[in-house]
């Protein structure tokens, strides 16, 4: 059975939670790159399974919302949540705004700068004055924005004093887009080993894009859609228990656990919200 994450979600929800939508006009950058399997599992909650191979996503937003200029970098790992590919939030770094996160979940205040270096675009991310990572997008070229697709996010929101997972659909109205091949995210050399920005560094570039337009992020699940709330107690522990017992107790018991797992999967899947980005 697929591997599941091991990150506890307790305490990951931000103190203040605005279900959105967050509507940003401006430019954003998204890098997709392969990451280490063990690192990915460490930053993924228990009710998310890992894809093969594991990949990370870096979203850098440079725009303006109703409150004014907004610039943040969100690091995520690719995961499968209710059968669908999702970006599972690891941490956002937000410039200004008093630490209010760009996406609900762990956040830090810091700086996000974007500059040109010849034909390349370079993004530098720092947390509290300390360099975290640099992303370089080599020689981007224009593409039809319709070629791009957008996965929703899995974020962390408060409910009844606890943290629960929520799906955050993303809607994009793109006016222009560029693609870059070979883009990488490199951590700062002095970063601690356990820092996610170091652990989730690029092992193999996949793709990167730069888009101009409007990005709408429904942190609360979106108007009229089923909000997929999953508490750690309900889902994560149950899944983890099923898998643990399957692995420990050998094949006979594993087959029984597998059947339960598949049944849960189909039930969840039927109930899941399907965003407009899914049916490409």
């Amino acid at each position: 059975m697929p591997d599941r994450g091991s990150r506890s979600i307790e305490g990951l929800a931000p103190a203040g939670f605005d279900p959105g939508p967050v509507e940003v006009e401006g430019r954003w950058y998204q890098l997709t790159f392969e990451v280490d399997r063990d690192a990915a599992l460490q930053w993924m909650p228990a009710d998310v399974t890992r894809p093969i191979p594991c990949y990370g996503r870096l979203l850098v937003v440079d725009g303006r919302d109703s409150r004014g200029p907004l610039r943040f970098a969100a690091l995520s790992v690719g995961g499968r949540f209710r059968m669908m590919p999702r970006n599972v939030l690891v941490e956002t770094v937000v410039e200004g705004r008093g630490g209010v996160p760009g996406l609900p979940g762990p956040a830090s205040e810091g700086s996000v700068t974007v500059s040109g270096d010849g034909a390349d675009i370079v993004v530098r991310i720092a947390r509290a004055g300390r360099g975290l990572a640099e992303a370089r997008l080599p020689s981007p070229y224009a593409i039809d924005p319709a070629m791009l697709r957008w996965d929703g996010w899995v974020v962390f929101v408060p409910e009844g004093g606890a943290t629960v997972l929520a799906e955050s659909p993303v809607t994009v109205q793109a006016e222009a887009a560029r693609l870059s091949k070979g883009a990488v995210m490199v951590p700062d050399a002095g970063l601690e080993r356990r820092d996610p920005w170091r652990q989730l560094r690029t092992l193999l570039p996949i793709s990167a894009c730069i888009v101009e337009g409007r990005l709408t992020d429904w942190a609360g699940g979106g108007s009229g859609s089923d909000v997929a709330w999953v508490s750690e107690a309900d889902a994560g522990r149950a899944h983890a228990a099923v898998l643990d017992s399957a692995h420990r107790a050998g094949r006979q018991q594993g087959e029984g656990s597998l059947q339960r797992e598949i049944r849960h999967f189909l039930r969840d899947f039927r109930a899941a919200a399907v965003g407009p980005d899914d049916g490409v």
Partner: protein
Amino acid sequence: MPRPWGPTTEYEVYQNCLEQVKLADELGFDQVWAVEHHFLEEYSHCSAPEVFLTACAMVTKNIRIGRGIVVCVPEFNSPVKAAEVAATMDIVSGGRLEFGTGRSATWTELGGMGADPDETKKTWDEWVRVIPQMWTQERFGYQGRAFSMPQRAVLPKPLQKPHPPMWVAVTSPGTELDAADRGMGSLGLTFGGFAEQEKKIAEYRRRIKYCDPVGSFVNEQVNTVNFLFCHEDNEYGAKTGQRLAGTFNYLAEQLLAARQAYPTRSYPNLGLLPALRREATSAPEGQIPEGLCIGNPDRIVEVIKKWESVGVDRINFLLNAIETVPQEEVLASLRLFAKEVMPKFAEKPAKTAAAVGGA
């Protein structure tokens, strides 16, 4: 290949597959296909299907041997080697090879091999044109875009003359039309319902009439894919079959489709994901999704007749997924199918041929 992987897990699964193929041959099934996949943990550990299929040929007498498919991407295979291996398989199987082609649909594989997703359609198109020439020309030389070679005799030549039937795996929308335009068989890999398949097949039939065949003959056939679990008790058969389908879909969902990670016109959809979603949601909970060959023989006969009516020539059956169904039940399912279902289609074997697929 179910985790946890013990020292003999892969051996046991391969032996199970060989036993299934041997029995299928004895029972009168027409074809066995094995995939070429790389790096797809649990989902498929079949990276050298030519070896497995050669073993199949050695333990069988009549069943057709389907190489499904050769990945026509230079980082995976050389076209010369692919032609040589296929010809050798055709010889040792006594002229039973079916030659499937494709280009991989996952970043897992393409990225792992260092292949450029933008290029795979082009290299596939080049290869399906040169391989039949290697088989039929005494000496072959070529200057192409992705592949060139000086004039050489590519040996051996296939036993089947002029060469084995050629197929293309159809996952992306429109690839069935690529198959038609090149005079190739359509090897369907998605689980669309009757109406959708009927429309695609009609267009395939229309287009292939005007094709420019890449081989020496036109292989106008539609081979689709399905799950098979046949049991006297319809409820048990359906329940077990749905467990099989659910397990397969769950594993497929973990793969990283090329389209999902890499924006390219070369892969316009998410591989299996959209089809899986339809398949899993096309029936209310507790009911069998449309078109699945699971349940008792009467129900399966009905379903196959429906597939036949929409224009399908052959059906490839997935028999198991990570050994969800015990081997004894898989074999019993094959026996019951052969006894109760096959006779209903015996009068038109070429058009209703059932098959087993190795994964």
